[in-house]
């Protein structure tokens, strides 16, 4: 077994036992990146020197007998909308193509402190707006399971990097499914934590009331390890949840006995691949056979989730992205006067999807339309939250597909924004409710592509999600497979 084929937990153990060095580990992933990334295009920026420096330092500290974090020396990839001091952070936008932040996001600070070598910054849909990573201003990322297909998005680079073994761990961000949908399209585990569980400080904002950083990994154990590092109260983020965080890793007892699980009734079946829903039912049967109670539930207001989301998120985005005006940093087109400078900078610096959302949001917040659009959407959001509160009185967990279909073809939905928006339909209401939501592999489609299951819990119950995910890893076939990339590995070794 090659080093890059190990899980983060496995690597952590090898490093701890001094069977391998962090430099060996990082080198293995770097070789993998060198071979695969020219084809997959998961990374915008590679940082091999920095990664090796960190690895060397960690190896030295380990040799000196220092007590280290479990993930010390295990490399990671970071989505390129999370600020890294002294290292390009582009949001896959022309607007920030040359932007180098002067500070680290709180989560990046935590990674550096714990000694995780950063392998690079991963591709995304521009400003995290999209579901296929095709909206990157630089290049699309390919799905490791089928290079003619998308990896999902917006954290497509992170999902593809983990799936293909170019990184054992990655950070993504999820606004309306941007971790969970690409995780399921690439066959990896992706967790959207409770809103406020992980600090947003340094995450370049798309929609502030929805954005959350979370892990993309192989399996629940690795997600738990990474959550132990990145979660917790941050005084720099006013929406960060106070209180002490649990030890995620210490609570993965794979037992589902007496769990009350609600299977979300599919009111709309149109657009859902029957094999995807079939896999969800198969898993429900496995859970029932092991002592869980599974019952169909419906959350009536969630039918309006997509509409509410596509008003609230663009409204916030229209405001959050106002700062890219060419005055202080980023792209500047110049102009004869200030208005011309603003409009040319923004006209040339943003891609079409970003502009579309800024325009939708600007419209929804405008005088005379605010009540009918933004305010109405906020009311729907409140009602959706209530739906969740009601259902969690009787259930511990909700389950359903994490994407209506497996990965679609590159270019298939680029001309139809509504079809593209619909690919997040499974993920969006959990985001609006602010509850934790986990995408785990649910097996393989007859065409060979991975499919995903989404598990949702009430606020702060990430542990429960990871516990059930761990149970499925041990008790449900079709998990933990990796894409066959031998052709691109160049034959050698």
């Amino acid at each position, binding site marked *: 077994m090659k080093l890059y084929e190990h899980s983060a937990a496995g690597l952590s153990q090898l490093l701890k036992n001094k069977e391998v060095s962090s430099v060996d580990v990082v080198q293995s992933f770097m070789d993998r990146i060198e071979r695969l990334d020219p084809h997959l295009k998961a990374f915008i920026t590679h940082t091999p020197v920095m990664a090796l420096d960190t690895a060397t330092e960690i190896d030295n500290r380990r040799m000196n007998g220092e007590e280290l974090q479990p993930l010390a020396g295990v490399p990671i990839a970071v989505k390129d909308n999370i600020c890294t001091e002294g290292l390009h952070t582009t949001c896959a936008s022309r607007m920030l193509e040359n932007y180098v932040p*002067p500070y680290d996001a709180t989560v990046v600070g935590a990674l550096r402190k714990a000694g995780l070598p950063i392998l690079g910054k991963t591709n995304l849909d521009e400003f995290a707006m999209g579901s296929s990573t095709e909206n990157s201003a630089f290049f699309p990322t390919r799905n490791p399971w089928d290079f003619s297909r998308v990896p999902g998005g917006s954290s497509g680079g992170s999902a593809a990097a983990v799936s293909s073994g170019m990184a054992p761990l990655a950070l993504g961000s999820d606004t309306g499914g941007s971790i969970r949908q690409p995780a399921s399209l690439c066959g990896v585990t992706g967790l959207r934590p409770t809103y406020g569980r992980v600090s947003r*400080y340094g995450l370049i904002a798309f929609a502030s009331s929805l954005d959350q950083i979370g892990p993309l990994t192989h399996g629940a154990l690795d997600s738990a390890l990474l959550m132990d590092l990145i979660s917790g109260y941050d005084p720099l983020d006013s*929406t960060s949840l106070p209180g002490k965080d649990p030890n995620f890793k210490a609570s993965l007892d794979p037992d589902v006995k007496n769990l009350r699980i609600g299977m979300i009734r599919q009111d709309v079946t149109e657009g859902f691949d029957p094999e995807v829903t079939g896999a969800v039912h198969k898993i429900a049967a496995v859970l029932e056979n092991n002592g869980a109670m599974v019952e169909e539930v419906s959350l009536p207001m969630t039918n309006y989730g997509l509409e509410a989301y596509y008003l609230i998120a663009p409204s916030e985005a229209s405001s959050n992205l*106002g700062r890219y005006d060419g*005055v202080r940093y980023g792209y500047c087109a110049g102009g004869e*006067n200030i208005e011309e400078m603003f409009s040319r900078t923004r006209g040339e610096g943003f891609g079409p999807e970003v502009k579309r959302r800024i325009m939708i949001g*600007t419209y929804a917040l405008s*005088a005379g339309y605010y009540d009918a659009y933004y305010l109405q959407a906020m009311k729907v959001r409140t009602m959706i939250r209530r739906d969740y509160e009601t259902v969690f009185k009787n259930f511990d967990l909700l389950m359903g597909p994490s994407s209506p279909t497996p990965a679609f073809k590159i270019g298939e939905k680029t001309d139809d924004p509504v079809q593209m928006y619909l690919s997040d339909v499974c993920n969006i209401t959990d985001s609006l409710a602010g509850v934790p939501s986990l995408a785990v592999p649910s097996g393989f489609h007859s065409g060979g592509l991975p499919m995903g299951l989404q598990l949702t819990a009430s606020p702060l119950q990430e542990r429960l999600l990871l516990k059930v995910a761990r149970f499925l890893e041990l008790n449900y076939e079709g998990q933990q497979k990796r894409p066959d990339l031998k052709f691109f590995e160049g034959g050698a070794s």
Partner: protein
Amino acid sequence: MKHEVIIGLEIHLELLTQSKLFCSCSTAFGREPNTNCCPVCLGLPGSLPVFNRRAVELSVTAALALNSNIQKQSRFDRKNYFYPDLPKAYQVSQYDRPLAKAGYLEIEVDENMRTISLERIHLEEEAGKLMHAGDSIRDADYSLVDYNRAGIPLLEIVTAPEIHSGREARIFLEELRTVLFYSGASDCKMEEGSLRCDANISLRPAGSAQLGTKAEVKNMNSFRAVEMALDYEVKRQEAVLSAGGIVTQETCHWDEGQKRTIPMRGKEGSSDYRYFPEPDLLPLSLEASFIENLVDSLPELPQQRRSRFKEQYQLDPNEAFLLTVNRGLGDIFEKAARHYSDHRNLVNWVQGDLLYQLREHGRKTEEFDSKLLVELLLMLDDGKINRPVAKELLSKAVQKGVSPQKLVSERGLGRISGQENLLPLVEQVISENPEAADSYRQGKKKALGFLVGKVMALTGGRADPAELNRLFDEKLQQ
């Protein structure tokens, strides 16, 4: 037709915090441009705001001092617009749920008390400062921006349209400044821009209930400018209306050089700021105990001090006003009054000679030690020194902080009295001024003053005037 003038004011006040509203950057004035900045106040991608608790305390204190109704639940909103001095392209402000509502301020206009209602008080963040290489951002070759000021906490106070003249507006602002200064919320320095005022002004036929079309006046850099600008607008709008014209809604700025208001270009129509709740901050929730603590620690306010001064020291309204507006002067008075019971004499000295000397030498009230004044007045009352000497000693005390008592004993500035000391001088003056002496002998009492003055000149003002009067009288009656 007679018109009624309707004015509403919008006041912006920088709060006296050490650090900015949403980050720990310093609020110090006059630093090298763009040095008091960080990712938060520069609005760098990914940065987030965190409340400055002190700013909330000062806002609530200011609102309490203005008799306002503090809202236990208020909320922050984003006011979206593009301008180079606004780093995030939105200002974090409060829209429909402000920090305080329904306040008022009492002012005295021509010996009548008027109550001006305050519609709302809210907290927001300051923008940066633009400097143009030219007249405005449109004409300039280039413009520079300094973000040191960006993010300083700003209190906005909006009055009801209840002010009826430029003069009333100025008196209101003066009283407002005094109250806010007393509350400790702001240093209220208009010259550093920590207090700014915009005005809405309209005219309507006297007796009409409907408001006329208003003009908004900006760029008034002193209270005097506010009064002049509003008086100018009254005349301008009156002229328009009298000629049968219609006042158009516009924003204009006051041109201090030309002493007139000039309509601003390109600002026609109202902007759509697309306000919506700031998702990066939780709603502001104030506990009853937090507000009560601030009520309890509210300092004495000008109105209270004025009443107390009138009652406790028997001051007249003008004296009480002066010693309140000039808080430092009032403090000197009050400290001295603890050790000196002739309050009438004390207030005369404080508002007369002391105030004159402080201004003359450019000294701040807090630099002056009230004990020196007490020393001086006690020596004067005991007849140890004369009034002219006292004035000179006060000047020295103000300039250098030297003790009058010490100076008197060191330099022998004490009063010269006793026949043995004064008689030779009286005789010398009579012999040198025979005409004046003759006049007095012939019954011209005024001549005595001249003769006494001559002795004073010879003694540096130290001779005992009562004794001199007696000696001259005796000498010239003989």
